């Protein structure tokens, strides 16, 4: 690697992969609970397993973002990281806090956890994805601030590239919008309104800036295309992201007590949200086709192309499927949402992190690229996981269409559980696709250990 301090990225990447494994294992538990309702009950009820599944996802993605930033920023800024020690200290604080939180979820009932951690001082718990106890939320703020301080000072003392600036905007936005997780008014409509300022403005807003800048960085490195061209694309993509995505928040304001004009604003702007993802796909393929060098790391290029395509399908196409208000009236809060969520998170954020890890990890381990043998395994894992998530999404979509029909559209609507029983076949198929995903993940991890002849740095 070019700068010694980039090495702090390594523990972040390793932790990210470890937590990813945990996320998938709990996903398999959840999938089984969908069909064998009493599986692990009452030891690990569904809500607990789901909290672990989604929180591990968020935390491993954050580890990936931080690791990616620590790797990328010194190279972009052409200077050592401001403080590698601070980065390492924050790594351990974040890891221990995250682990304690997960142990807390699993060890005691959630209400007890709330009592033990002082939820009554400031009631923030018990809202989807923001279930973390108050000390954990405060810990996230501390870690985020220390991280931003470190990254920002590094950029300020070095070269300020467009890629760094877009990344910084994304990361600062991430921290600022997280602050809304501390606002939980007793009025449930307001609660929900601002809950989305964290959740939507993260995943359909500032996180896409992080995604775009990571993608741009890896494309510059692997294709050798002129930085001016790539950065121009990056600006166009993030412009499209924010001009569609910010007002696009309105697609969450259809049925929660907010004024009905949001059905127009939300439908129109969120219907445009696939455009930046499409641009990202075109961007990735275009740059790879115009490449001026053959980078030995083929696997990283595959992830870069993959994240373009899969985020377009998962976030763009599957998001569009149910984003128009008249459609969403029937699909809101069904397995259609779950289908979209799975492919969008994998395609956009899991894959971009795996891309960054794929590119950076071999260099952090002292080589330009892994051995051919290792890369072949990694590419197998790419296809296994990607095809598995496509099938998970298709099965959940089928389940969702039937659910909507049986429970919402039919002349004689069925009760929720009756409808669920009728679509159990699709939940079984989803679970098997989940097993295939786990196999892919195991192959992925194996690719780090197979050895073979490495490409010299």
């Amino acid at each position, binding site marked *: 690697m070019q700068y010694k301090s980039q090495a702090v990225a390594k523990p972040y990447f390793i932790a990210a992969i470890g937590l990813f494994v945990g996320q998938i294992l709990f996903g398999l538990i959840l999938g089984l609970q969908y069909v064998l309702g009493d599986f692990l009950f*009452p030891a690990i009820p569904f809500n607990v397993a789901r909290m672990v599944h989604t929180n591990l996802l968020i935390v491993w993605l954050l580890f990936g973002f931080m690791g990616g930033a620590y790797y990328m920023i010194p190279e972009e800024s052409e200077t050592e990281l401001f403080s590698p020690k601070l980065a390492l200290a924050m790594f351990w604080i974040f890891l221990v806090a995250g682990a304690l939180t997960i142990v807390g979820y699993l060890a005691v009932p959630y209400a007890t956890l709330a009592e033990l951690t002082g939820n009554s001082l400031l009631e923030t718990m018990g809202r989807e994805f923001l279930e973390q106890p108050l000390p954990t939320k405060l810990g996230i703020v501390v870690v985020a601030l220390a991280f931003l301080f470190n990254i920002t000072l590094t950029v300020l003392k070095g070269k300020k590239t467009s890629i760094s600036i877009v990344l910084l905007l994304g990361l600062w936005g991430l921290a600022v919008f997280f602050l809304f997780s501390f606002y939980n008014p007793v009025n449930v409509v*307001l609660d929900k309104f601002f809950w989305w300022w964290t959740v939507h403005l993260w995943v359909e807003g500032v996180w896409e800036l992080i995604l775009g800048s990571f993608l741009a960085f890896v494309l510059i490195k692997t294709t050798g295309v002129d930085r001016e061209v790539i950065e121009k694309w990056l600006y166009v993509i993030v412009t499209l992201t924010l001009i569609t995505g910010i007002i696009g928040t309105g697609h969450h*304001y259809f049925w929660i007590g907010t004024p009905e004009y949001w059905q127009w604003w939300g439908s129109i702007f969120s219907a445009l949200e696939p455009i930046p993802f499409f641009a990202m796909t075109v961007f990735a393929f275009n740059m790879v086709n115009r490449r001026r060098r053959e980078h030995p790391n083929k696997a990283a290029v595959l992830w870069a192309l993959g994240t373009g395509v899969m985020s377009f399908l998962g976030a763009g196409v599957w998001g569009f499927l149910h984003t128009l208000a008249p459609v969403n009236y029937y699909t809101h809060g069904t397995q259609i949402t779950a289908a979209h969520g799975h492919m969008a998170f994998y395609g956009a954020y899991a894959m971009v992190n795996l891309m960054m890890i794929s590119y950076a990890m071999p260099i952090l381990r002292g080589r330009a690229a892994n051995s051919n043998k290792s890369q072949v395994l990694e590419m197998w894992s790419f296809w296994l996981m990607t095809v598995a998530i496509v099938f998970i999404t298709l099965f959940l979509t089928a389940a969702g269409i039937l659910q909507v029909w049986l429970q919402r559209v039919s002349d004689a609507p069925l009760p929720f559980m009756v409808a669920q029983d009728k679509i159990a076949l699709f939940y079984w198929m989803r679970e098997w696709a989940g097993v295939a995903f786990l196999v892919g993940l195991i192959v992925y991890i194996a690719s780090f250990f197979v050895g073979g002849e490495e490409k010299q740095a």
Partner: protein
Amino acid sequence: MSGAFTKSMARNIFYGGTVFFFLLFLALSFDTHSQLPKRDMRQNITPQVAEGKKLWEVNNCIGCHTLMGEGAYFAPELGNVVVRYGEEGTKAFIQARPKEGIPGRRSMPQFNFTDEQLDAIVAFLKHVNSINDANWPPNSQG
């Protein structure tokens, strides 16, 4: 994407567009806030409703259920549960959950709520049901 369209033009459109649409979002949010009192029934939020919301949160109900369509999709929508089961029926259902679950089936945990807590939870769910949410869900099954 070459020739006349330069990187600095792209950058300026990015900053200008972002600021413009964020301000538009703030304006819409501001307008929403002025309209909400007519829709969110805030005048009916009693201490009991507030207690019910707290119980809803600290027991992580959203981890299985949806409320106005948001949450997990493992268990039924509860924004309209008082329409479906009635107030007494809702309480009776919560109370009757077997501690060890139901063999082979999904089951809600037994939370051992007191009568006051059950009243508070139902008061909260009744309040949510009264919110003007554009006539969602489509029918009483949620």
